């Protein structure tokens, strides 16, 4: 085996050194890690904004900020979390790292394009930060900033609904342009993954030998490429409308604001599957490994990913039941939305059936995966309340929606990502995380998360509207529970990520190449993998889930 100058085994982390080798890398593994670093920063920034809001809501009335600041905070929390953290999310980090390894390829199909996606992401992030600038300083300077459209942080909410986004005096043009660039980055990533999965599978890696994470990533990539252009054009139209005064969405200029909502949700409903489908894939990888049983109903899990992606394109107007759409289309969108519950439930049944009578090891990744299943069950069933026309009229724009959304996205996508980071940690870093710390962090995350958002379901049912800075005294106890939960939750994430970062840089314990005894291809190469992933192109002869099945030469795996 090749060795570096210092006598270490060569791997993708040490075969080249220095910042420049990272910034110019076209190695999918390094690009995945660079996304992870940037996204972690944004996750904490947006998380701190959330904690500030929770603190403000501890008592009714203004405590630590004004109502205007609160509007800016929830807009930034949403925009940063959505566009800079969870949309690139699992695909950009774990997808980049794992897809070529799992299919036995040396890299993605277009490595340079992959690096371009990363820089587009950074440019989008910088534009979003610039959009926070307020016109300050000497008069000529503040006039200049105003002329540039930098008129203060955006207060429209992450949805940029017209007509307010057309009238708001804040830097909407900058923020929407940032989102446009980030969307472009997302499209190129998705395109790259589709081509990679089609063209670069190792010999013998047929479609039905692919790990379910690959199927989930494939379905996600389809949404990324097909839905994102539509939000791109609607954001572009918002910009044109503000800059040139043309009339598309503004009723004052002959436009129709409901059309914006259609365009926006045509993307932004499917986008929740960009966030959560890869997490389904991750849970599908983790549960068989720690149950030592073959994944139950493998083909159905694969098809279910595609079905979710497909149905997801035809249900967007369930966000608009009270926006004045016709009764007939509301009935259609309601029924079609129930349809998503079928493939989603198939997945849940398959995970639970995989665990049934397995020999379960409650390692940290498995704890997160099981929490995911538990939380997602609540997320899915509360979604049905919101898809039902009669109940949605009441729940719409209340904390019920906030709680449902965070159960799917934080409890789903974020916990899925944290599960993945622990599971593939030995592969990525070649080290082991501190298990005791990891478990305590999991406990804080799980308890904190549920304590934050279960009371919000109750608040919603009592009629507490979302995005409100102030509230009636009757809501105080639930808000206080939620705030306490949020801080526990935040402590849990901080502890989990600190543990991972600390052990990666200062940990002494070297990980074996396959500590969890997975059968998947990425574990069959050394940890961390070499620059080209495999010494020789692997030849695949079986699917990756034959756990607990007698193999040639006797014994069970």
């Amino acid at each position: 085996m090749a060795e570096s100058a210092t006598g270490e085994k060569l791997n993708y982390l040490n075969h080249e050194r220095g910042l420049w080798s990272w910034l110019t890398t076209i190695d999918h593994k390094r690009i995945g890690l660079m996304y992870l670093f940037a996204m972690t920063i944004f996750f904490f920034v947006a998380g701190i904004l959330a904690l500030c809001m929770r603190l403000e809501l501890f008592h009714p009335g203004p405590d630590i900020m004004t109502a205007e600041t609160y509007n800016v905070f929830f807009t930034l929390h949403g925009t940063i979390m959505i566009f800079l953290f969870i949309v690139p999310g699992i695909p950009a980090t774990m997808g980049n790292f794992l897809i070529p390894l799992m299919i036995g390829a040396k890299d993605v199909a277009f490595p340079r394009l992959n690096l371009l996606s990363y820089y587009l992401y950074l440019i989008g992030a910088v534009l979003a930060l610039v959009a926070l600038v307020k016109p300050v300083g000497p008069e000529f300077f503040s006039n200049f900033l105003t002329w540039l459209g930098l008129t203060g942080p955006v207060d429209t909410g992450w949805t940029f609904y017209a007509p307010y986004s057309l009238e708001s005096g804040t830097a909407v043009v900058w923020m929407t342009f940032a989102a446009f660039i980030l969307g472009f980055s997302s499209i190129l990533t998705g395109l790259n993954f589709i081509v990679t999965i089609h063209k670069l599978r190792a010999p013998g890696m047929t479609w039905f030998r692919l790990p379910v994470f690959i199927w989930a990533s494939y379905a996600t990539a389809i949404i990324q490429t097909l839905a994102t252009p539509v939000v791109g054009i609607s954001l572009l139209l918002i910009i044109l409308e503000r800059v040139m005064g043309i009339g598309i969405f503004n009723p004052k200029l002959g436009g129709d604001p409901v059309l914006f909502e259609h365009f926006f949700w045509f993307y932004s409903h499917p986008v929740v599957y960009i966030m959560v489908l890869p997490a389904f894939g991750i849970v599908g990888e983790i549960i068989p490994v720690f149950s030592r049983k073959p994944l139950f109903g493998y083909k159905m899990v694969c098809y279910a990913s595609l079905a979710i992606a497909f149905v997801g394109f035809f249900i967007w107007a369930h966000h608009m039941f009270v926006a004045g759409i016709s009764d007939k289309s509301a009935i259609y969108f309601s029924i079609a939305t129930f349809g998503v519950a079928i493939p989603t439930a198939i997945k849940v049944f398959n995970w639970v059936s995989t665990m049934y009578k397995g020999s379960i090891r409650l390692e940290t990744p498995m704890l997160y995966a099981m929490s995911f299943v538990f939380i997602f069950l609540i997320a899915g069933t509360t979604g049905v309340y919101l898809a039902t026309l009669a109940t949605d009229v009441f729940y719409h724009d209340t904390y019920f929606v906030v709680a449902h959304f965070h159960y799917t996205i934080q409890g789903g996508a974020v916990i899925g990502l944290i599960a993945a980071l622990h599971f593939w940690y030995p592969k990525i870093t070649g080290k082991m995380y501190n298990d005791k710390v990891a478990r305590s962090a999991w406990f804080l995350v799980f308890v904190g998360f549920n304590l934050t958002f279960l009371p919000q379901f109750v608040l919603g049912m009592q009629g507490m509207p979302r995005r409100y800075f102030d509230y009636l005294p009757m809501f105080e106890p639930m808000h206080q529970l939620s705030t306490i939960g949020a801080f526990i939750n935040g402590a849990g994430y901080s502890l989990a990520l600190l543990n991972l970062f600390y052990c990666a840089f200062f940990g002494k314990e070297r990980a074996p190449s396959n500590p969890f005894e997975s059968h998947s291809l990425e574990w069959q190469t050394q940890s961390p993998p070499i620059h080209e992933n495999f010494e020789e192109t692997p030849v695949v002869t079986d699917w990756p889930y034959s756990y607990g099945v007698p193999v040639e030469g006797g014994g069970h795996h």
Partner: protein
Amino acid sequence: MNSQTGELAGPPHVHHMDARTAYGAAKLGMWLFLGTEVLLFGGLFAAFAVYRWKYLGEFTHASKHLDWRLGGLNTAVLLVSSFFAAVAVDAAQHNDNKKVVRNLAITIGCGLLFLVIKYIEYSGKYHHGLFPGTAEWNSPEFNESYKCFFGLYFAMTGLHALHVIVGMIVLGWVLSLARKNRFSRKYYTPVEVGALYWHLVDIIWIYLFPLLYLVA
């Protein structure tokens, strides 16, 4: 492509897959990208459909302000340009780099001509006060459905013109490779995907032209 029979050779930097895979990957990638472009314009087409239904009479009337002769001329220019792009691909498959250069130069020239005609049309609109930001446009008498029609007109044709410019840059890059004799029967991927992109730009205009100019 039917003429591709023997082994394909790849560009020097493709180290992680063989040449045939690289060729297939590039083509699939470009087709997917064209799909995203169709959806990008699809949003505009959907908006146009909605407002044409909402302002049926006004849209018909507003459309009369567009000169179908200039629009038709531009359609012809783009169709001719697409023909030469296709000839360039064929030339690359027959190892004729000089012919690639010639035909791509004509294609790019057509793109330039298209932009010049578009500029003439835009400045005409400006003089008639049908351009966003002019005094007439901002006056309260300006019909709001006109703001919608011309708003969509400028958004659609402007975005399309941007694609023409990008297409010219892409083909210019391919042309520079052809001048270095990079292409052969075994390797002509950039010519083919570049031409594919150009055809899409052409096709979008073929939809825009009747929708905007001939709607009356």
